[in-house]
């Protein structure tokens, strides 16, 4: 399919090009909704569609007013501060617990490995609405509902499976004799961990942390139930905005969040290449 041979029949040629067109349309479907909000966020009017001025590339049709609104509106600013207060702490918790557990799980002999793995991965599998419902019931029993700590703990729990999966994947290629070599040269377990093991698995740990961060940063269902007005995050503010009075500021926020995803995607790709190089594979 990749290249059309010179002897291809007319039918094969027609099929080749129509298949490519179909694929092109599907790619368009995937990327178009994300690309279309970028120009719309610079709309000078409060419309959700392209105005005549915009289509004519008239500078008067474009403005930064929705971005200005985002950076000056106290509601959005508070939401952004809350998001940045919750996500890093949840990430730190998820990453430190998750990395330790992944190292434990990758030992050769772990009793009840599959049962433990099932429990640790479960926050990723259980539908968010069920996690949110259970946490709402349980956290209101123990007085954590509507508190900052409650939201952080919940987000950390949701982020751990990603850390476990990424770190375990890096540990698969980890040469255990390096640890033994360090120990035989007199390093204690803590030194061995930080000087030998950590530098080699750091790409996995960082990408796990990024996953945990984005899980918390994007999460809306759990915070919607567990949080009170004081924990209103960016996704929550977007959710209420979309449900009640839809304002074009949302498009400005969405464009900024697309920019964040692009940065994250780039970092992850660089990490993946570095990890493969460290493990002696040629990055593709």
């Amino acid at each position, binding site marked *: 399919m990749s290249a059309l041979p010179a002897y291809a029949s007319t039918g094969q040629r027609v099929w080749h090009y129509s298949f490519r067109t179909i694929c092109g349309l599907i790619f368009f479907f995937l990327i178009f909704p994300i690309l279309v909000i970028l120009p719309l966020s610079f709309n000078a009017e409060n419309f959700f569609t392209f105005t005549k001025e915009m289509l004519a590339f008239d500078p008067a049709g474009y403005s930064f007013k929705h971005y200005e609104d985002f950076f000056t509106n106290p509601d959005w600013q508070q939401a952004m501060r809350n998001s940045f207060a919750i996500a890093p702490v949840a990430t730190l918790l998820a990453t430190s617990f998750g990395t330790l*557990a992944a190292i434990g799980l990758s030992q050769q002999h772990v009793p009840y490995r599959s049962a433990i793995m099932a429990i640790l991965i479960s926050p990723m599998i259980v539908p968010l609405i069920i996690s949110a419902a259970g946490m709402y019931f349980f956290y209101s029993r123990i007085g954590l509902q509507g508190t900052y700590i409650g939201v952080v703990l919940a987000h950390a729990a949701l982020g751990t499976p990603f850390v476990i999966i990424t770190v375990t994947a890096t540990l698969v290629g980890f040469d255990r004799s390096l640890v033994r070599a360090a120990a035989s040269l007199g390093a204690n377990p803590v030194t061995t961990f930080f000087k030998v093991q950590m530098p080699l698995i750091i790409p996995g740990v960082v990408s796990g942390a990024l996953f945990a961060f984005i899980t918390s940063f994007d999460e809306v269902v759990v915070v919607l139930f567990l949080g009170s007005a004081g924990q209103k995050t960016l996704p929550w503010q977007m959710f209420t905005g979309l449900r009640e009075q839809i304002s074009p500021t949302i498009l400005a926020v969405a464009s900024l969040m697309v920019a964040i995803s692009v940065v994250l995607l780039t970092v992850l790709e660089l990490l993946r290449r570095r990890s493969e190089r460290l493990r002696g594979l040629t990055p593709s």
Partner: protein
Amino acid sequence: MNTQNPASTDTGPDENPQVLTTRDGIPLKVSLARALRREKLRALVLIAPLLLFVLITFAAPIADMLFRSVENGIVSETLPKTVEVLATWDPESGEIPDQAAFTALYEDLKVAVEEKTHTRLGSRLNYEASGMSSLFRKTGRRIGRMEPADATVERFIDIDKDWGTVETWAVLKRYSPTITPGYFLNAADMQLTAEGVEMKPENERIYLYLFWRTLFLSLTITSTCLLLGYPVAFLLAALPARSANLLMILVLLPFWTSLLVRTSAWKVLLQQQGVINDFLVWTGLVSDAGRLVMINNQTGTIIAMTHILLPFMILPLYSVMKTISPSYVRAAKSLGATDWTAFWRVYFPQTVPGIGAGAILVFILAIGYYITPELVGGTDGIFISNRIAYHISTSLNWGLAAALGVILLLAVMLLFYVYDKIVGIDNVKLG
């Protein structure tokens, strides 16, 4: 660990020649077992903090939900004496309980009204039989002014004639045990009556239909994802690595973009005054008056969720197709197969594991979706999750929310068990 040469062990006259020992004289078997135990312990110590953390912050809430879906302590807590008296009463007799029950009810309600718990009991019982909430409110208001001597059968019937019906007392008796299947029956559109379990009247059945619709919409979304994802994965696997990696960005960027960003994009695109409708009007395909309604209905949910879940279909399909050697198809063609036969009989069967993995993953994710249907689904495009959220935050019928949640959870667990059998839980890959 230093072991002696097996040949040297039979030099010692008082040692069993069969047993290998380490240098310090401990049998090798014992020493190995000890080392193994130490290793297991070390692994468990490393895992323990996270395991405890997840058990407390995540597993305990799920267990709490399971408990709440059957828990029903409220009747016996609010009306302890009445429940005791009713234990000897038989609703089959066709007569209301005697004076003892009314005296007990008076004493219980007197306490309940002081603690203001009678209205909660009323709303709880109202889920099972309508009219109970107002009955308890009304009785509660009047009971404060009643003397113990006034607590007669006639006086209660005078407050509300419902106290004179067998059904009221039967409901009280039926829901006095601390464990009830009532929420689950409600979740399946059934009810517990004097004659046992039966279906609710036609016009009150909503949940079975909602479950059916959740299933139907999830299946539709899974099939559209497969239909759109298969060609893309096929193309990506066939292209040389360089161009495939470039095109992969088009799949990964949506995958990494916030769910709410993508939902808002669709909300903007699909509106009647939105970009798609404007474009269609401009091309003349649709008249200005006949703008398409694509949002706040099932169409909106299906389009937006297909877009959101498509990467979850493409990625597993791609990773399976990448491992299929092109020489099989070439061999088939050299043996005289047409393009179609080579694809259908040789290539396609090898992609079935990828289809299975992708389809189950998308289905599991779709069946529990809440945000997107809530924002673009209107009334006929919503899922069972939206009903659960409604019962938690609006109707406050937490027991029913828990029961619906447990049913959904069981469905997901079952699907995940299948997924584990096909793909394996350890083979989950990200990005």
